């Protein structure tokens, strides 16, 4: 199985944020920070759990931050995957 490209990964993350947290795609892609999207530290714990289950990526506390924008999150997930 080939791993998704970063383009696919970004689309997947946007889809997850929409499906699980009710966030509109255009808002996520607008460059808003997670904080501005109401993704606080508790929701980041939820997001890490979802990413572990759906993408098999084991993010540690602190790998995601509420100051992140979507591209930062994509980069964090990719970095974690590269280590596996």
């Amino acid at each position, binding site marked *: 199985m080939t791993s998704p490209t970063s383009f696919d990964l970004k689309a997947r993350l946007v889809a997850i944020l929409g499906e699980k947290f*009710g966030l509109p795609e255009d808002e996520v892609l607008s460059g808003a920070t997670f904080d501005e999207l*109401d993704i606080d530290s508790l929701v980041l714990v939820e997001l890490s*759990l979802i990413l572990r289950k759906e993408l098999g990526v084991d993010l540690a506390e602190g790998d995601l931050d509420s100051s992140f924008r979507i591209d930062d999150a994509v980069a964090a997930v990719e970095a974690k995957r590269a280590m596996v």
Partner: protein
Amino acid sequence: MPGSSARAERTVTISGIGLVTPAGIGVEANWERIRSGVSAAATDPELAGLAVDFSCRVPGFDANALLGRRTAWRLDRFVQLAIVAARQAVADAGLDRETWDSTRVGVVIGNSLGGTATVEAQHRTYYGGAPDEVSALMIPMAMVNMVAGYVAMDLRVHGPSLVTATACASGASALGVARDWLAGGVCDIVVAGGTESAISPATLTGLSRMGALSARRDDPAAASRPFAADRDGFVAAEGAGVLVLERARDAAARGARGYAHLVGFGASSDAHHATAPDPDGTGVTRALRTALADAGVAPDEVDHVNAHGTSTPMNDLTEARALHRVFGSRPAVTSTKGVTGHTLAAAGAVEAAYTALALRHGVVPPTANVRTLDPEIAVDVVTGEARTKPLRVAVSTSLGFGGHNAALVLTAA
């Protein structure tokens, strides 16, 4: 009359009502259903296979549509119901959230069981061997106090916020606290009510094991029959009722007529048993007399009582004894739980709203499903059709597990 001006200072106006109950969403839908006396109880797919598999749910409650998915997913249903009811109440009161002094607006909401569906789901995860999959949101979703916190956040108000927990008297307790905050000058506006959504399988099983619930699986719609000779328990319900309260002179000054005035509150404790009411009704009698004294109202001035009337054998007999002791058989008594089932912590607030609507419309709604009245009950229970009569003073009673009793006295606006 001595004390009358001090009493006038304590009079508060119910200037807005929000209702999200098994009788419907919004004041008009609720009143229509309540006066028709048609029960909301039905078989509940989420309770399939349980000994009691029916309940009263809020029909067509779509939290995603009403609150937006972005907000709804992180809230347990008992909070969702309360936020929707609170928004309705504030809009109904005609208050402008942009211009009010938010530091002078308080929130007090009754709740008893918290986010039971959330807790049950997360406990399943934990005991299923996946503690690292327990949600970080479990605690903020489930805690009882969070409903007051979330309503304050949603309305962006910064006065005191509080959850009252006196079981099935919680909603009435909240209104009593609200009245005291207004009378004591702590707040200028209080958003007060009650909420409950605890019809999750393990919680409902707990109620069922107590013998508190009706077992009429073959005819759920006729199961809640307060004061009937053959009543056998209550029907578990969910819902929220939120009222906007203001000092009467403040409401009058801004031209708000309101639905009714809240003029008296009384509370007492049975100190008798965890769940059974004191069979003589001594505790609820004391709450009633305290509320009447607080209001400066004589028992023979009371035209209507919206009773707690849960449809359990013990509650209804105890309560009817107390009502008869205090009022004789003069007031028209009803229990709207025949329609709504028992919304637990929401009941006191929901029923205070129905009492205010009865005063406004001059209509006592009927107690649903009563074919034969319990012969031991000597009060004038309205059954069958709604009764139209001029109403000036009305009382709403609430009794909770733990022996909490509360009574509210309302007058026509």
